[in-house]
C-alpha cells in the first residue's frame, strides 16, 4: 500500500521520510524519559537517604546489561554496514543477533526485578523503587518494541526488501541504548 504513495517517496526536507520520522520519534521520546528522570533527580537530590535504597541495586548486573546493550547496538550497526553493501541475509543475521541481545537484556532485567521483589524491595516500600521500576519498566517496553521491530525488519531484510529500514531501526536502537546509559548511571552508579 504505502509503496504506492508518492508522498512517502518525497524528501523536500533533504532526508528520507523514514529517517525523518525516526528522528521525530526520538525527539518525542526525549521528553517522555526526561519527564520521569527530571522528577527523580529532584527527589533524589532532595532525599540523601535514598542512597541506602540505591545501594541495594546490583551494580554488576547493571554494568553487564550496559555491555550487553552496547554489543547489541554494535550488531545493529554492523547490520547497517551489511545493508549498505546490499547483503540482505547478513544484515538479517546481524539484526537477529542484536534482537537476541535485547532479549537477554530483558531476561536479566526480569531476574533483577524478581530479586528486588523477593527482597521486598517493591515499589510500595519507597518512592525510590517506584522510580526505579517505572523508569526501567518504561525503558524495558522500548526494548521489547525494539526487539519486535528488529525481528520484523530482519525478516524483510533476509529477502532483500526494505534494506533502508535496517538503518532506521539501528538509530532507534542506539537511542534506547543512550537512554540506558543515563538510567544506568543515575540509578546504579550514583549513590
Amino acid at each position, binding site marked *: 500500500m504505502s509503496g504506492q*504513495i508518492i508522498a*512517502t517517496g518525497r524528501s523536500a526536507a533533504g532526508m528520507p*521520510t523514514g529517517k525523518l520520522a525516526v528522528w521525530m520519534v526520538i525527539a518525542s521520546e526525549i521528553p517522555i524519559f526526561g519527564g520521569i528522570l527530571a522528577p527523580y533527580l529532584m527527589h533524589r537530590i532532595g532525599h540523601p537517604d535514598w542512597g541506602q535504597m540505591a545501594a541495594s541495586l546490583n551494580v554488576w548486573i547493571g554494568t553487564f546489561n550496559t555491555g550487553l546493550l552496547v554489543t547489541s547496538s554494535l550488531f545493529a550497526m554492523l547490520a547497517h554496514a551489511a545493508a549498505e553493501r546490499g547483503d540482505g541475509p547478513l544484515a538479517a543475521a546481524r539484526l537477529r543477533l542484536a534482537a537476541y541481545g535485547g532479549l537477554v537484556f530483558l531476561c536479566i532485567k526480569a531476574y533483577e526485578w524478581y530479586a528486588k521483589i523477593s527482597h521486598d524491595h517493591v515499589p510500595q516500600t519507597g518512592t525510590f523503587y517506584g522510580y526505579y521500576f517505572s523508569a526501567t519498566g518504561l525503558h524495558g517496553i522500548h526494548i521489547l518494541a525494539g526487539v519486535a521491530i528488529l525481528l520484523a525488519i530482519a525478516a524483510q531484510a533476509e529477502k532483500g526488501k526494505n534494506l533502508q529500514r535496517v538503518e532506521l531501526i539501528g538509530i532507534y536502537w542506539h537511542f534506547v541504548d543512550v537512554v540506558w546509559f543515563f538510567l544506568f548511571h543515575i540509578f546504579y552508579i550514583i549513590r
Partner: protein
Amino acid sequence: MALHSITAHGMPELQGHHDVHHEEHWFLKYCWSTDHKMIAKQYLVTGLLMALIGGFFAYVFRWQLAFPNQPVPFFGVVTPASYNMMITQHGTIMIFYVAMPVLLAAFGNYLIPLMVGADDMVFPRLNRASYQVFLISSVILIWSFFVPGGGFGGAWTAYPPLSAGSQYNLTPSGSTLWVVAVAVEFVAFLMGGINFIVTAMNARAPGMKFVDVPLAVWMIVIASVMFMMSVGPLIAGSVMLVMDQNFGTHFFDPRTGGDPVLWQHLFWFFGHPEVYVVLLPALGFLAEILPVFSRKKLFGYRTLLYSSIGTACLSFFVWAHHQFISGIDPRMANVFAATTVLISIPIAEIMFVFIATLYRSSIQFTVPMLWALSFVAEFLVGGVTGIFLGASGADIHFHDTYFVLAHFHYTFFPIAIIGSFAGLTYWFPKMFGRHLNEGLGRVHFWITIISFNFIWMPLFFTGIMGDHRRIYSFANFPDLMTPDRILLREISSVATAVMGIAQVLFFANFFWSMYKGRKAEDNPYNANTLEWRCPSPPPHGNFAVMPTVYRSPYEYNHPDREVDFWPQDEPPAGQGELRPEGAH
C-alpha cells in the same frame, strides 16, 4: 531520491491509481481506510459526537447551578458525585476529545496532504492506527462513566492525592480508566503528530518553499511540534499516577516523600502549551479564510509565522501561572507572572496582523468569514482577560473563580467551537462536494454567538463577586445567594440551553447539505491554495496531476492579474498558460 526527481517534473505518476479502490467493501472504505480524507472524517465525526456528550454535560451542570437541587430536564437530579463527574468529563472531553481531534487531527489530516500537494500522508497505515488508538481511548473514556463508583470526578486537572487514592475520590476504576484513556490518546496524537510533521516537511510539492506553505499547515505543524515537546512529562506522569492508583507507589503521595505539587508541574508543563496546541490550528484557519473572503493578501506572512513560533516557545515558560496559589514557592510566581504577561506580545501581533489584513480589503460576509471574524472579536475578550490572571497580584482574587472559567471559555470557545465551525463551513464544499445552506448557517451563527456571550459575560461578574468553580451548589454559601448573583447565573444557564438547542440547526444543515446541498465547484471561493485545485470531493490520491508550486498562497488581487486570485500551482507567464504583457 529517485522518486523525488520524478515528481519534480510533475509527471502524472501512477495512472489508474484511483481505479484500484473502486470495489471496496464498505468496512474497508469507511473503517479501515488509509486515505487521509476518510481518516479526517472519522476524526471529525468522533469529535462531533463527543462534543454532543460534553455539551450535554455542560447543559446539565449549568442548569443545576442556576436552579440548585431541582431535577434537570432530560436528566434528573444532580448529585454532588455526578456533578463532579460531569464537570471533569466536560473538560476532558472538550479539550482532549473535541478540540484536539477536530482542530488538529481532522483538519490536519484533511488539509496537510492537500495543501502541500501530496497524494496522502507519508505513513497512511500509521495514520489509520492513530485514529484507531484514538477511538479505543474514546471508548475507554466513555466506558469509565459506567464502571462501579462512576466516572472520575476530580476535575480535568486530576490533582493528586485526590486522583491518586480511591479512598479520596471514591471512584476506584473510574479514575484509572480516565488516566489510561488520556494517556492512550496522547500516544494516538503523537503518532498523528509525527505523521503531520513529516508530511509537511518532506512531502511538499516541488517548488514549495517554506514561505509558500499555507499558514494552516504551518500552524498545525508548529502545534504538533509543541505537543511532541510538552506531552512527554505528562505521559511519564500518567504512568506514575496509574502506579500510584493501582500499585501502591507514592510518587504524588506526601506520606512517603512523594509530592502532589510535582503532578501539578507535570500536568501544566503540558497543559499550558496544550492551549496553544489547539489555538494555533484555529489561527491557521483564520489565516486561510480572512484573505480569501477579503480578497486581499495576508498582511505579514512572516510576522504571523514568527509570532506564532514565538508564542509557541514562550508558552513553555509560563505554565506555573496555573499554580500561583497552589503551593508553589511565591518567589517562583514572580518569574512566571513576568513570562505570562509577556506572551501578550506575540499574541497581540497576531491579532494586529489579522485586523490589518482587513484594511482596504473587500469583505464578503459569508458564513465562514462570519465565524472567522467573530473569532477575532471574541478571542480579544479572552486574550485581554488573561492578563488579569497572569498578573500574580490580581490572580490571588481571581484564581479558581468563575472569572477564570469565563476567561478560559472566551479563549477556548473561539478556538474549539468557532474555529471548528469556521473550518468546517469553509472546507465543507471540498470535503463533501456540496455547499452548506447559507441562510441556515447564518441563523446558526448568530444564535450561537449571541448566546455564547450571554453565557460567559455574566460569569466574569459572578467570578469577581466570589463564585468559586467546581462547587456543586452555591446554596450552602450565604454570601453567594444574593439576588443579583442568582440572576446572573440564571442568564448564563438559560443561554447555555439556547446555545445547545441552536446546534440542532448546525447538525440539520450538515447532514442535509451532505446529501441534498447545492453541488460544489472545484474552487467555489476562487482561492489560491492547492486543496481547491483538485476535484470536490478529492478522489483517492487527490490530484490527477501532482502540482508544482510557484508562489505564495495569498496572492489575491495581484495588479498584474485580470482575475483577483492566483493559484499556487499556476505556472507563471511564459511557462504555461500565457498572458499578454501589459494587459493590466
